[in-house]
């Protein structure tokens, strides 16, 4: 098991180098001059342009620029954007926002999704089942900006149950509405996966055996049927946590949350390579770690799964 974890961590190194190089090259290949993009239509004298190009090594070829960037990264420097701000400082505050939003959405998916799935799975073919299947289909079908704007207009503007936007209210109040909007898609998948798995497993021989042994209903469903049904759910939740941590451009925009998604979006438009690569690097690391955790969790749910 220890060796397995070590091997997985070592595998992360080439993935890490590959993604940063790829992202760096892609930002590099974007059309336009970042210094000019920063200024818009305002005049940029040649002296200023030259100073900026020198300061950020913009005239160097790609391999050299990337090398300089990686050298800095190895020394713990994420560099600065073309506006002179430290990338680490820019991203720091935003990661907190994104992480809080992701955790809120993820907990919502997990709690409500599994609950709905169990409810529907136990009542397969009855009204509850139809309601859950219909409701989740609707949630999957509605684009997130429609859902977000509608939720904001109703819960924020009309009834004022939640703040309309912004992170001022702090966690959890300020993050509940955006978290639920962001988590609605994942919730639908989690509910459906749980429901199907549970409904299938409830008919399995081992469940009948457990019932025949005289175990209580709670124990049969909770310990035997549900636990087996959760493997695909855990896989999904793991991957989805990685996605959520990647920032949610639309949701962050609607609810004015200064998260990582908005920053990456803006920085791509401004061709700010160091910011994009810095953010993506952290995303990749989180994704790798979460996936490792998910793989280890399988063992918890199904003791037959072992790692070497």
């Amino acid at each position, binding site marked *: *098991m*220890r*060796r397995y974890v070590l091997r997985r961590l070592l595998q992360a190194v080439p993935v890490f180098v590959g993604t940063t190089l790829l992202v760096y090259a892609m930002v590099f290949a*974007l*059309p*336009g*001059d*970042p210094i000019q*993009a920063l200024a*818009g*239509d*305002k*005049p*940029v*004298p040649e*002296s*200023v342009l*030259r100073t*900026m190009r020198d*300061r950020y090594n913009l005239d160097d070829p790609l391999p050299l620029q990337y090398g300089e960037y990686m050298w800095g990264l190895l020394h713990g420097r994420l560099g600065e954007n073309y*506006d002179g701000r430290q990338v680490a400082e*820019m991203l720091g505050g935003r990661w907190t926002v994104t992480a809080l939003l992701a955790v809120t959405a993820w*907990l*919502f998916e997990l*709690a409500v999704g599994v*609950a709905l799935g169990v409810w529907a799975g136990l009542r397969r073919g009855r009204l509850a089942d139809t309601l859950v299947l219909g409701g989740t289909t609707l949630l999957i079908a509605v684009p997130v900006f429609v859902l977000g*704007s509608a939720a*904001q*207009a109703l819960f*924020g*503007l009309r009834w*004022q*149950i*939640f*703040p*309309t*936007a*912004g992170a001022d*209210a702090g966690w959890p*109040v300020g993050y*509940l509405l955006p978290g639920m909007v962001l988590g609605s898609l994942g919730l639908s998948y989690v509910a459906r996966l749980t429901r199907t798995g549970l409904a299938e497993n409830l008919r399995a021989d081992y469940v009948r055996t457990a019932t025949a042994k005289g175990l209580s209903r709670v*124990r049969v469903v*909770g310990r035997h049927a*549900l636990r087996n049904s*959760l493997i695909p759910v855990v896989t999904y939740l793991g991957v989805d946590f990685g996605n959520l941590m990647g920032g949610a451009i639309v949701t*962050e*925009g*609607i*609810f*004015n949350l*200064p998260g990582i998604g*908005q920053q990456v979006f*803006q920085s791509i*438009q*401004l061709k700010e390579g160091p910011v994009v690569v810095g953010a993506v690097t952290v995303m990749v690391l989180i994704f790798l770690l979460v996936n490792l955790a998910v793989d280890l969790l399988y*063992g*918890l749910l199904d*003791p037959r*799964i072992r*790692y070497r």
Partner: protein
Amino acid sequence: MTGYRGAGRAVRGRGRTAASGAVLVAVLGLTGCGGFGARASDGTFVAGHPEPDHLVPGDTTSSYSFDVLAGLFDTLVGLTRDGGTVNLAAASVATADQKTWTIEIRPGRRFDNGEPVTAAAFADAWNNAAYGPNAYAANAYFSHIQGYADLNPPGPGARPRSRRLSGVRVVGATTLKVTLNEPFNQFPRLLTYPAFAPMPKAGLRDLKSFDEHPIGNGPYKMSGDWERDRQIRLVASPTYTGPRKPRNKGVVWKSYSSAETAYTDLRAGRIDVMQTIPAAKVPEARRLLGDRFLPRATGTIDYLGLPLFDGRFQNANLRRALSMAIDRRGISKAVYNGDYRPADSLLPPIIAGHRPGACGEPCTYDPARARELYARSGGFKGTLELYFSNAQPTYYQWMQIVANSLRQNLGIKDVRFRQVPASDYFGMLNAHAEKGPYRQNWEADYPSAQNYLENMWGGRGNRMGWHDPEFDDLIARANRAADEREALRLYNRAEDVAIREMPMIPLWTWAGQGGRSTRVGNVIITPYSTGLLAHEVTVK
């Protein structure tokens, strides 16, 4: 090696799930009582806008930074509501020859850290902003001042010969002498630009902290540091003795990444002032906000520039024909709710020197006459490519109408669209890489006819490759004129030359639509760099 076993956890897991569900319900109940619209009145108000880039005055050209800087600093000269000049930090700005200016600074004024506002505070701030290696955003605005070239030598590898503008001399504690490269009677208007604000010694010593927490001489001061991506809190400065005494206790500039969301917050009463409601929400805002909807004229003009370096655009009749084939009013109705004002001059109505109908026939929609001029010019050969950036979706909408007009009214068969990424657009125009008419706009840095005419037809904004000695001479004479009326007369004559030759077609002047909440009154949004007059806002 070892198997990973974890029996008997699923039940506990369910228990935890139930617990977090209970927390969720509890929180929902908690928020239900609050209500997020109402705010206690403490005499301050909240304004929403996009995040500024910098707060060091010389290092920004962003109007969102200006929103904040206008409260924090008194420049030497400020603007009145209708675009006139009024002395703020200066007691007098005088000149005999329009080239050498003597500026007396009001004595006894202080920065909010207690330092006196001296002539050196201005000179040091300007030298810092104009020094090429500092790479400040507003560097180019100092190019009128003598010695600028020494701080910004042209050519690769050249080192600056000086750190100080030789044209800026401190001749007394509160007396500044400024020498310009050329006579320039609009200099007091240039001084209204926020980059010309003073900086205290403490700020110049530590520019990084100054950017987070500027120390100004204006009606407001910072309350805490700049909370990046969130807000900037300003409170009325107790030491301020200037003419812009605030009628409120403070203003919070809240950052929004989406204008739609800011508008939603305005409706919810979470912000009090919004200067620019997004175009798509304007009809709704007009209906919902009633007298809290604040429409205004602005100084931004859209133009269609013609690449005269391309031989096919050499004929002036062709250029006039293009202009007369475009239905400006129709486009404003179709794309901008009829709010944008068709251009009848090269200057917007908010600028002194605007003459209604100055453009006359060449700016009038007249397909028959356009066809006639087109035929006389010999027509247009090849593909007509229309260039615009992807910064706004409306550009493509109205370019399509322009294309249809040119097809129908002039019979130009082959019209194509070239939509260019915004980051690439001006670089392309500067390199003269476009092969057809291009969209461009201009909003004055300071309200002056000179700023439009010299920038767009004479200087940097002239991407047409148009040169006309008569125009250049008239502008130079106007800049030298001692009398404002004489200057305007000469600017107007230069304008007439540009209309006659029509190297760039004026299209329309933008409209701005703001809104306010019920908590605030006396909300005045000027069309100039001063924007919202925050100090005038009253809070209930």
